[in-house]
């Protein structure tokens, strides 16, 4: 999954004089207010932080309320999804028109049917909707599964992501990890046999020719279907 970065930040937290009794608490409260909100300064959402006060002295900000600025160094974990990044999310709802998932437990994402590649087909099984690949029968996307998708756009206010399942390297993470190997990374490995390489290319290019691994199983299922039809 992409979109997660760690960053060191030099921050100055301005503490209200009424909080001067317990500055540590005030700093933590201030930093906690950053959590789960999009911040332009960090160009993303702060998910976690750890702080390290730099100085025992604070700078007094003159004014009606003499706020004092505490300088500190913070380690932040930032989530900043950008278009074309690959994210992973847990599916919470599937309808004919869309797949809804939750990324990192707080950010919602939707993949509408025009952003789902034709290979994936909607089916209603036992009253529940699933998306099944037309070519790889084991590639099933259902509620509760984790999918990998590409970011199309992001609503920063409520961190709502619009995603896409068009690229071939997207879909159910379970299936992708098991059967899908990215050609770009693997082609560098010299130890690969020609046979394996061919198989992967088939999967990636993907659609018309069936991969050799699943070949006979798919055929079998076709036979079965024909038998049922008759």
């Amino acid at each position, binding site marked *: 999954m992409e979109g997660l970065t760690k960053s060191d930040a030099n921050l100055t937290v301005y503490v209200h004089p009424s909080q001067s009794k317990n500055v540590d608490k005030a700093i933590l409260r201030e930093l906690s207010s950053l959590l789960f909100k999009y911040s332009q300064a960090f160009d993303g959402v702060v998910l976690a932080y750890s702080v390290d006060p730099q100085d025992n002295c604070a700078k007094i900000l003159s004014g009606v309320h003499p706020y004092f600025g505490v300088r500190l160094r913070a380690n932040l974990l930032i989530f900043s999804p950008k278009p074309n990044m690959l994210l992973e999310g847990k599916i919470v709802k599937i*309808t004919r*028109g*869309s797949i809804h998932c*939750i990324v990192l437990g*707080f950010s*919602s994402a*939707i993949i509408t049917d025009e952003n789902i590649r034709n290979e994936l087909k909607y089916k209603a099984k036992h009253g529940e909707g699933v998306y099944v690949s037309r070519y790889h029968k084991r590639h099933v996307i259902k509620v509760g599964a984790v999918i990998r998708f590409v970011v199309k756009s992001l*609503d920063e206010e409520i961190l*709502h992501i619009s995603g896409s399942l068009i690229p071939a390297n997207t879909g159910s993470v379970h299936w992708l990890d098991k059967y899908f190997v990215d050609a770009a990374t693997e082609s560098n490995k010299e130890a690969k046999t020609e046979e394996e390489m061919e198989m992967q290319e088939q999967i990636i290019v993907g659609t018309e020719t069936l991969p050799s691994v699943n070949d006979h199983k798919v055929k079998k299922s076709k036979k079965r279907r024909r038998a049922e039809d008759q």
Partner: protein
Amino acid sequence: MGVELTHQYTEYRAMEDQEEMEEGVILTDWDIVYHVRDALLSVKTGDRSSYHQLVAVLHHRDRSAPDKVALLLTSLKALSGAVSYINDIDHVSLLQSIFGMSMWNCVPDVMDALLELVICLAASNGKYVDLCLDMLVNNFMPPMESDMLRHPRGQTKKDQVLPRVHTGLEVIVDLVPLAALKLSTTVVQKRPMFFRKDFNMDRLKVRMEIYLKNMLMLEGGAIREFVGNSVLMEVVNMMLELDVAIGWDELLRDDPNKGIFTMELEDEEEEADDDGQANDVELPSTLTLRNLGKNVTADLLDSLMIQLFEHLEACADKKRLSEVFETLLSSFLATILNTYKSKFSQEECCSYLFICLCVQFAIFYACALDPENCGVKFAQTLGDMFISNGNPPVTRMSAVAYLASYLARGKFLSTAFVVNMLKRLVDWCLRYCEEQDRDMNPKAHQAFYSACQGIMYVLCFHMKSIMNVPTLKSQLLLMPIEPILRHKLGPLEVCLPSIVNEFLKQAKAAHLFTISKAFIFEDLLESDLSRDFGGLERLDMFFPFDPCLLKRCDRGFIRPNFIYWNHVKTTYDDDEEDSSEEDIADDFGVVNEENFMEEGIARSFDRDIDLDEFDFVMNKMSITPKNTSGFHFGGERMPSKIRPSTSPESM
């Protein structure tokens, strides 16, 4: 009506299906979705006719025609499948129509379809989340102009709408987790505000009641983890606002030259009482209560408090009271603890001195439901607040006043626990005395005097019961109360004379210590010194858990858990028992007041006890001094029920 409609509509649908079959036209749901998608897409190309048709369908007000209902239902379902084609630039009127619909005007099938559409919209685009939440929260109440809740049909409708609305909110939070944050804000913002001069008070009352019901449903529902805290805090704020808004000033300010009793007698003669019976000539303090009962604000607060109490009971049944209590407690500390100011800082401060709030009884009742955990925690938190030097003196005094009043009045608290808490206060006072080597100064040592007064107040209520248990008696005797009271700071002279008198009387009878100094303020309720230490807020006379003024709350929930002064056995009772009881009986016409206690007073409504009479006795027997006729504040004599008990009665 709704049932009939549904029935008609089902028939209509069956007929329609049949016609289609006959004509050979079969449209699947998905076909209609495509049709709607085309209509939505065609707006961009300039062809708006299909789109306008669609919007018009949503605007049909005639919900009785089955064909219109069927069309509406189909359109809503189709829109759910086409939400990703809706955008907030081209389809403003469509969005306005959807969000302007009220479930209260729909049949259940349409409600379901509308709910599904709203859920789909919220999940489809971040921009719509706020609007969807607003729409659902608006559906907490029937439309503004509607009076349907007064009819049985409205109640049925309520049972149809509310579960759907809450399910909708839960699903949206499941799909868009951060919507929970927005929901809390929306619920707070949409809360109906109370205006005393509202032209339609009945409708406002109904709306506030149903809104509170919804808030409590959220608090007890599946998403309470995310919104429960903020919603409960808002419930307390809402009640506090009402409490502060109770029109006491109207009661008291009507005619400054007319005695309050005269005024109330006249009012009572004009109107029938709660039971619809004409009033006999009543005694003043009962009348005061009745008058308050007719106060619309107080009545509303009463019914809201009852809802909250019932919710607390439900929480206790589900074993989640401690979770709710945490929130109540923090809300209490944040707001209620310091809210007396809003009443006391009025212009005619004297007239308002004696008015306590009622909201604190919510926490009192939560403590009564779970004395071992909540009850103990409440007292300890107040103790901590008082002892902590970091808090401002006013907060500390308020905390100790709450603590003393709570320990004195909570019937559910064990005497051993009361003694423990007393010991904590006494230890603090002793340390304070050791550190201070100065003379009496009411303003400089406010916290100390409040603590001393608190200790004496609690002992007025509990000395006898403590003395009855040998271990506790020895603990009490070992407490260094005497050196504290005899310290140069002179707490006996500064604290309220009425409390000091009663305390000394009981201490003398119990042989707690010897009193050598004579006090000359026998008939005084307060002295200048006590006024000084109480400050502008008059915290010297602040006893928050004096009998609850809200009638139904008091009878149904508080009374069984509450210690009334007339049930307190004092240490000198043994000597004067016969004469004093006879006096009471003679004075107030009560045959045997002890029976009330034995029979379980408050919940036994079926018994033939005149509760108003009982109220009167309770009130009269509270620790207000007998000599009330000579006691004036702000030029007005206060009705004893509004006046909190300020000092133990000299029996």
